[in-house]
């Protein structure tokens, strides 16, 4: 199980790196083609936008797991340290509700747009929303894990 999750996070890193590299190549190739060869890659803009959305939504999961989403924690820590472990749980609950809505809304749009084929790429525009489905589901697991995991004492956190 542990090995599986390590493997999953590595896999996400690799996908993000590959997508970003592909986006760089696509946009750069288009510039070179436009000036060097008087032509262009018709799908390059749309494909790089698609890659961008996937990088962002996958990266949001990584950021959630690593606690890298921007937050102001100093205030609560200082004002009511005893309440912090319970606040953390409440925070994970809010996150769980948010990402559930992301998952559910994006799933509906993915299905609704699976037959909506882009004229330039031939790909379903539902692929954009699919990023939200995958991201919402993965963030949901992260939130559940933290919500039902052990209650962290503020002291533990301070010693990290």
């Amino acid at each position, binding site marked *: 199980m542990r090995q599986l999750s390590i493997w999953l996070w590595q896999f996400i*890193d690799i996908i*993000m*790196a590959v*997508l*970003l*590299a592909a*986006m*760089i190549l696509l*946009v*750069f190739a*288009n*510039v070179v083609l436009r*000036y060097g060869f008087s032509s262009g890659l018709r799908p390059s*803009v749309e494909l*790089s*936008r698609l890659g*961008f*959305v996937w*990088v*962002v*939504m*996958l*990266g*949001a999961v*990584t*950021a959630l797991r690593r606690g*890298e*989403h*921007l*937050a*102001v*924690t*100093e*205030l*609560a*820590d200082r004002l009511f340290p005893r309440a*912090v472990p319970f*606040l*953390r749980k*409440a*925070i994970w609950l*809010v*996150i769980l*509700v*948010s990402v*559930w*809505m*992301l*998952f*559910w*809304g*994006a799933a*509906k*749009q993915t299905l609704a747009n699976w037959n909506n084929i882009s004229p330039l790429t031939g790909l379903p525009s539902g692929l*954009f*929303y699919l*990023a*939200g489905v995958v991201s*919402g589901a993965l963030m949901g697991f992260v939130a559940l894990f933290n919500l039902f995991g052990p209650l962290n004492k503020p002291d533990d956190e301070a010693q990290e």
Partner: protein
Amino acid sequence: MTLLLFLSVLLFSIFLGLPVAFALLLAAMALMLQMDLFSADILAQSMINGVDSFPLLAIPFFLMAGEVMASGGLSTRIVRLATALMGHRKGGLGYVAIFTAVLLAGLSGSAVADAAALVSILYPMMKKAGYPEAPSMGLLASGGIIAPVIPPSLPLIIMGVAGNISIAKLFIGGIVPGLIMGMALIVVWTVIMRKEDVEVAPKADRSERLAALKDGVWALFLPVIIIGGIRFGVFTPTEAAVVAAVYAIAVSAFIYRELTWHSLFRMLVQSARTTAMVMFLVGSAMVAAWLITVAQLPQQLAELLGPLVDSPKLLMATIMVIVLMVGMVMDLAPTILILVPLFMPIIKLAGIDPVYFGLMFVINTSIGLITPPVGNVLNVVCGVGRVPMSTAVKGVLPFIAVYLMLLALFVAFPSIIIVPMKILIG
């Protein structure tokens, strides 16, 4: 009332430690409940659509360029050069940062991308040279928001469309206020550095300077490529970010030979992660913006302004205060798109020059990018520089104060903007 609900949910949850992106979503949900349209569709669609933007693609690309420059040997050479040239002066790297900010502003139209580039390239250098965290961060963030004022500028284009104002005139008119902003930064930085005790390098001699210049010339060539490329239409600002990344990779791989496949992979992952953190926040802001628009909060605001038409300066001052308040919680583009069409009729009625108004509005909303609680540039610099929000907020405060004084000055004496604009247009 609705605005109050939104703000209190947002601020309260941020202070309790909820990540800002989710605090925006929670505040958006509060609006949904209040308007009786609670819906996962709104959240999911606004978020994905907010993230799906070609101009914003410049963010990962500039981040990548910055990562490569930082670990591929370019940045160290620029540090060496900057130190050789200005290091003996007190706060030298800060002046380098201001100069770079104005230069970058002439290259790109996005404050967020510029701030990301500035922080990812210059912050590590400033840290290494022992500059205090907060003021350095404040300077870089404040430098980033010159980007939308000096052309090219996406916000000025949006402004031209939303307010039916000549974009060419907005562009030309933006040059002088943008430069004034840069000068204001120099003043603040000089004052701050007077009190600070930063290590000052011994003055480099001629041969040392030449050696540093020769070694750093490849890195210095990058802005030339970007400026030239955009000015002469070889590529768009978004594409310029990619060209910058490719150029940086090429130089560090083939000339400096400090790049490995493994480090390239690590940089890609790092840029992707930072991008995700920034853009997830942009997406959440878009969810909130969608609901603020539908709740028609700004309309209620504009109706109150009718009586001020007879005193243009007072009207201008009032609008600037409102925009500043909205800019505290909202992003630049939605603020422009929602408020400008509402203010425009009143502006024309009061006989205020639309180009002047457009520039003032964009300067104001740009300042909003670094004002807490929600400022995308603030978020970006914290994310990229990996410093706590409180440090950045502390750091930007003196710069915000001076920018606000500039704004007040421009309200009192519109000719500071209008006269040079008319001269440049001819």
